[in-house]
């Protein structure tokens, strides 16, 4: 019983989440439409319906706060729908704030928290005021043919008025439908007519005399001339008649000026936003012209429609961000509440299909096994078995891929939320930003999407807050006044790349380096030899920020170091490129799925370990004579750079059995090695490792062996075999893991430890290898962190402020 209601609750969350997400998308579209001056009434209707559904759902599950918010919103949306209230930026702010609140309410509901949410009461109060003020909105009664008005619903009447207000020509379409196929016919007509205009209403014509068919009169508003419309609808047998206007002027004379084509217009598929009411000292024309009705507007009646009614939202609403204190406006998280994945039924069908195939193979196997008893059939049986084995293998692989596919969700889910967040941040920061999204359809593991949402949000916030300059500054530099942020995603082999790029001021490398030196993170000598990339990568170091004052938006105690850590945890890497006054681009590269990853299997004293290949840079032989001791740590020089070593056997307290362990790895030559570890630099291929490996830049000195471990001493024994160094890299830090042998590369399915082993550092989990043995999967970033933690803590104490 409880599990059933649990399941129902889970369903509720995932459904509500889905609706809220859809709502957010609709609002973004509405926001864009409002700016372009033409709001599609259907869009408002969609938003209304979504809120209505949410109200019903919330009521069903006793989520009272959600249902009261929905109720109030519904009232506002109804007014919008009926044209009693105009779609304006402040109204949209209220709606966006509501969507964000829905997220919070869902979270609270999920955690069964009852604590008050102050923003909710504020918002409800605002909605109240809004609705009250809106009552006087479209008060001036429309003067249209009373007979027509009598049959129009309030919504249709509003649509009619809107069309008139926009100076659209009204058309009367007549079309005859067979009763049997009227549904399809209507759908087709709607689809065909939609691009040309707005269908206001359908009315059955009074002269219908046929029993099997019906003639409909359709009232439609359109900007297109009648010939275009006629051509488009001709094949459906539609008669098009233009309704005459009073005054007899040509229809297009009354048209409003075309919506201004701003720079945003090019990004048609992208969601764009900008704001009209940003308090900037420069009196700049708002980027969007309000859709004022053209003055000579004689519609069907005698008196003009009163479309210039007082603004339904009084002045106090114009600045929503000020009326809600900044604290309350905290963005929270954009992770979704729902744990479930809603799956396309087709994907499941495919999986089910493979399961069916597998069952057939199994039956066949049973039959063959039965046959095996008959020794005569041996040859045939063998062949059949081989064939079956192949089929089996294929199906298992497809099944595996199919299940992985089910875990995948389009990045668009998180991008939509990012777009909302961006709209809000840019409003708070008083900057105009145009967001261009590409690759929203790229699929990524659901788990990765969830884990990624917060880092992405942080980067988005940085891009707006630190990257994009003020309008004045941009104009002074000759840049477009509206900043652009590009959010791109694309697949690249087994990886997904996500880019966040802004055309802002860029990262000042000198200041970054200066600060790093001041904080003791970089020695003055090192600073001279650092490459551009290394300097830029400093922003991932804890405590570094180029922004001198911690802003309200960014000052949340997390920085790019946290972003980096979180992305590393997902097996991903982050890179940054920046040019002064041109912009900054963050590139996040992630594995497509967490479930299966490629790993390098290594052996340390007879125990096998898996190291995710994402963390492996290369694997080389360890030249023991090149090992030096620096600062009490073993290190070697690899191609001119110092590489700290970490003896896994020592770290894990495993006996060094290299002398008795098998010969694996010993006979590997360089080509084989690079095959095992494809991350290995190409320079390794085909060349003797002995020369390419560690160059003994520092001759081995016996005096230093005193600090060398037992493992090392054993390794130094004459009979000992060579060991290998697996170079792992996390950001700019590299660590050489010393292992006994390399076993090979394998796809592994990683499984997390239970709570009893949660606190064991250095392992990401375990995996079952092909031979059924279990190998522990190393958490390379954690190991690197651990090995560097000590020295860095010591350095950080010289001065480190947190912020950014």
């Amino acid at each position, binding site marked *: 019983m409880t599990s059933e209601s649990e399941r129902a609750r889970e369903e509720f969350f995932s459904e509500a989440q889905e609706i809220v997400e859809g709502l957010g998308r609709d609002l973004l579209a509405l926001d864009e439409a409002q700016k372009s001056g033409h709001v599609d009434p259907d869009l408002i209707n969609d938003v209304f319906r979504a809120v209505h559904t949410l109200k019903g759902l919330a009521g069903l599950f006793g989520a009272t706060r959600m249902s009261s918010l929905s109720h109030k919103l519904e009232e506002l949306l109804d007014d919008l729908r009926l044209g009693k209230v105009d779609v304006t930026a402040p109204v949209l702010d209220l709606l966006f704030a509501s969507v964000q609140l829905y997220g919070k309410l869902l979270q609270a509901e999920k955690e069964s928290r009852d604590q008050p949410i102050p923003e909710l009461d504020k918002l409800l109060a605002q909605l109240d005021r809004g609705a009250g003020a809106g009552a006087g909105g479209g008060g001036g009664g429309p003067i249209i043919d009373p007979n027509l008005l009598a049959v129009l619903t309030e919504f249709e009447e509003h649509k009619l008025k809107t069309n008139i207000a926009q100076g659209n020509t009204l058309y009367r379409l007549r079309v005859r439908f067979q009763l049997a196929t009227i549904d399809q016919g209507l759908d087709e007509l709607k689809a065909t007519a939609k691009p040309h205009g707005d269908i206001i209403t359908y009315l059955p014509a009074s002269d219908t005399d046929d029993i099997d068919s019906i003639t409909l009169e359709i009232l439609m508003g359109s900007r297109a001339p009648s010939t275009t419309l006629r051509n488009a609808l001709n094949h459906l047998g539609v008669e098009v008649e233009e309704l005459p206007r009073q005054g007899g002027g040509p229809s297009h004379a009354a048209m409003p000026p075309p919506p201004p084509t701003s720079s945003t217009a090019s990004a048609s598929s992208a969601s764009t936003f900008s704001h009209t009411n940003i308090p900037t000292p420069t009196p700049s024309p708002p980027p969007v012209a309000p859709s004022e009705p053209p003055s000579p507007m004689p519609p069907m009646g005698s008196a003009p429609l009163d479309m210039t009614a007082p603004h339904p939202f009084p002045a106090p609403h114009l600045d929503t961000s000020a009326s809600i204190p900044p604290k309350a406006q905290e963005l929270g998280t954009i992770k979704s509440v729902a744990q479930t994945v809603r799956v396309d039924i087709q994907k499941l069908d495919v999986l089910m299909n493979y399961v069916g195939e597998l069952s057939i193979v199994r039956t066949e196997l049973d039959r063959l096994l039965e046959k095996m008893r008959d020794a005569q059939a041996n040859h045939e049986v063998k062949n059949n078995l081989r064939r079956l084995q192949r089929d089996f293998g294929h199906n298992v692989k497809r099944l595996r891929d199919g299940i992985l596919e089910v875990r995948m969700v389009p990045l668009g889910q998180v991008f939509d939320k990012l777009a909302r967040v961006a709209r809000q941040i840019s409003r708070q920061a008083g900057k105009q930003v145009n967001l261009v999204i590409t690759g929203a359809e790229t699929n990524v593991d659901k788990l990765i999407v969830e884990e990624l949402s917060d880092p992405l949000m942080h980067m988005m916030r940085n891009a707006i807050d630190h990257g994009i300059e003020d309008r004045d500054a941009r104009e002074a530099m000759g840049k477009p006044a509206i900043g652009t942020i590009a959010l791109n995603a694309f697949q690249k082999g087994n990886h997904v790349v996500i880019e966040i790029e802004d055309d802002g001021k860029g990262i000042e490398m000198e200041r970054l380096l200066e600060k790093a030196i001041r904080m003791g993170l970089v020695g003055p000598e090192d600073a001279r030899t650092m490459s551009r990339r290394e300097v830029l990568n400093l922003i991932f170091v804890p405590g570094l920020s180029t922004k001198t004052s911690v802003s309200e938006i960014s000052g949340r105690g997390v920085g790019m170091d946290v972003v980096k850590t979180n992305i590393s945890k997902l097996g991903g890497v982050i890179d940054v490129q920046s040019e002064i006054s041109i912009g900054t681009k963050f590139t996040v590269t992630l594995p497509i799925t967490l479930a299966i990853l490629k790993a390098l299997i290594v052996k340390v004293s007879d125990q096998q370990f898996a190291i995710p290949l994402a963390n492996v840079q290369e694997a080389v032989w360890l030249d023991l004579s090149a090992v030096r001791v620096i600062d009490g740590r073993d290190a070697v020089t690899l191609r001119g750079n110092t590489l700290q070593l970490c003896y896994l056997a020592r770290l894990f307290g495993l006996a060094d059995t290299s002398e008795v362990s098998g010969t694996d790895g010993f006979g590997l030559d360089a080509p084989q090695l690079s095959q095992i570890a494809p991350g290995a630099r190409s320079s390794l291929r085909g060349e003797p490792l002995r020369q390419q490996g560690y160059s003994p830049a520092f001759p081995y000195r016996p005096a230093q062996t005193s600090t060398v471990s037992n493992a090392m001493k054993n390794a130094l024994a004459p009979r000992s075999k060579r060991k290998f160094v697996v170079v792992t890299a996390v950001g700019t830090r590299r660590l050489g893991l010393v292992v006994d042998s390399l076993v090979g590369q394998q796809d592994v399915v990683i499984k997390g*430890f*239970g709570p*009893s082993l949660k606190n064991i550092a250095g392992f990401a989990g375990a995996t*079952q290898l092909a031979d*059924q*043995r*279990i*190998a522990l999967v190393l958490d390379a970033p954690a190991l690197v962190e651990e090995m560097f933690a000590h020295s860095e803590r010591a350095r950080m104490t010289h001065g480190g402020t947190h912020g950014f």
Partner: protein
Amino acid sequence: MASNLARRSDSAVVVAGQKHKKQLRDRGQGTKYLAFRLAENVYAAPVALIREILTLRPITPVPRAPSSIMGIISVRGQLVTVLDLRRRLRLSEGPVTSKARILLVDPMGVETLGLFVDEVLQVYRLADSDIEQTASALGGEVAGYIAGIARPAQAQNQADAKAQARNASGLRHDASVIILLDLKVVLAS
């Protein structure tokens, strides 16, 4: 596996003799306990808490884990942490024999754990009246783990051929005293 356990318990009741069975019926249900050997003592835990008894399989050690964690095994694709009950209870450790088993338990309902035991003996049905609440009298570290002491000796003495055979084989276990473990306390520590 649950059905296996049930079968075992039935046989245990049968060997306990008709008289005992009748006694049980008179006294009411009683609780089933699975008895197992750790080092040289007989311990028992409620059957209801034990999900499965696994034969020994390779246990992958986990470096840096507490010493009482032997490592992990894979049970139908799920990773299970195996605890060495002997170490957890600070008993002496002997060689691992083929009789060793891993009991799967989930007393808290948060994680299935494997408990390594030297040998699984049998199921006893014990009524509350069979159990002495002597834990507090024992003192020492083990006191907290012990839910009680049972002496099903009379019932056992009737004819437990298997147990006698075991005794004869030199593995001394005196089923006259069974230490009932409070798994929740054992595993929480």
